[in-house]
């Protein structure tokens, strides 16, 4: 037990996590490129046309995985924030910060592709229904978090303020997910349901899951690269960073 705890906490120190992140990043870049490559090929050439929406539905292969990632990354960031607040670990706030731009990008992509999909199918670019509005609030939470952390000069205060914002905002995630169930919305219900039933053709489903895995790999790779930069910037005064940079300078 004692041993396991020590091993686990070993990587919560920026100095030991820095090289680990450097080793993980290329693996996930390769995975991301391969998976998204296969996923895009399947999206355009393998998945069959839809009986009602024709080829227009193919935007789902970007739209749904991006929406999933935007919600999931937020939960991960809130989780890191809780850990940071409770255990006072330095790395958790850095991880939350490293994930934020990727999450914001996915929230934006979700709204953007949704708009492109909504115009031909529903007949409108935008409506203020519960699903779409709560996803927009998620994008604002990401942007607000980045702005708040960036606006406070004292790193420890910035981390704490950001962590509290993320934890307060986490109530929005279940609202996004269940909005189509709780209220009448223009947005249709979930295709992939919690109870494991799907109302989608097998090939379409596989394509969507491959794209989702590709987005996962991309998110991890981007976060690893970003967290390395953040670690270097924040630990500038530390001996190990000076030794590392000293090699190159």
């Amino acid at each position, binding site marked *: 037990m004692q041993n396991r705890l020590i091993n686990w906490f070993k990587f919560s120190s920026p100095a030991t996590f820095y090289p680990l992140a450097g080793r993980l990043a290329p693996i996930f870049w390769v995975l991301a490129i391969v998976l998204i490559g296969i996923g895009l090929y399947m999206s355009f050439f393998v998945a069959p046309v839809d009986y009602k929406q024709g080829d227009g*539905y193919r935007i789902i292969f970007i739209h749904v995985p991006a929406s999933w990632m935007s919600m999931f990354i937020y939960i991960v960031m809130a989780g890191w924030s809780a850990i940071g607040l409770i255990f006072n670990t330095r790395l958790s706030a850095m991880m939350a910060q490293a994930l934020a731009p990727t999450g914001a990008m996915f929230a934006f992509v979700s709204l953007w592709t949704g708009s492109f999909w909504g115009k031909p199918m*529903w007949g409108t670019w935008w409506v203020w229904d519960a699903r779409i509005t709560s996803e927009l609030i998620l994008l604002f939470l990401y942007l607000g978090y980045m702005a708040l952390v960036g606006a406070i000069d004292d790193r420890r205060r910035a981390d704490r303020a950001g962590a509290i914002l993320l934890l307060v905002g986490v109530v929005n995630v279940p609202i996004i997910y269940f909005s189509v169930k*709780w209220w009448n919305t223009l947005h249709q219900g979930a295709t992939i349901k919690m109870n494991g039933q799907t109302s989608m053709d097998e090939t379409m489903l596989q394509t969507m899951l491959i794209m989702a895995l590709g987005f996962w790999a991309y998110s991890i790779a981007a976060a690893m690269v970003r967290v390395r930069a953040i670690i270097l910037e924040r630990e500038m005064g530390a001996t190990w960073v000076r030794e590392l940079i000293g090699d190159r300078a």
Partner: protein
Amino acid sequence: MKARHKRLILVAAGLAILGLATSLVLNALEGNLSYFFSPTEVAEGKAPADHVFRLGGMVEKGSVQRAEGDLTVRFVVTDFHKKIPVAYQGILPDLFAEGQGVIAQGKLNADGVFVADEVLAKHDENYMPPEVAAAMKAGEKARMETTAAGN
């Protein structure tokens, strides 16, 4: 009790209170967060009478009538309990069809006709190739015929 246990309790309690507050607010907002009213809700008088609101449901099969010479379309929106006749002048989205979900924005007039100034198509969460859809439809039809023959 260690300091970090105190912080753990604080964070957990904070989240619990926040969750409770949110669920109370959402509960209170219930009706206002709905994007549209169903024909049954309209028939029960839940929709505002002198106000613009949205009506959502299925376009009843065989109910679409297009006027000659202009873009006026008349159809009936149903939720399989109540029906509301709708009149609309303008261009309909591509997915608009009989038996398809629709959301119309407008007002009820004195004759109980919903005069829409915007019509949006609502689609469901099912995605399948056309062959599968055709096979399912044929299967449904065969099933209906056997039950009808059984009676």
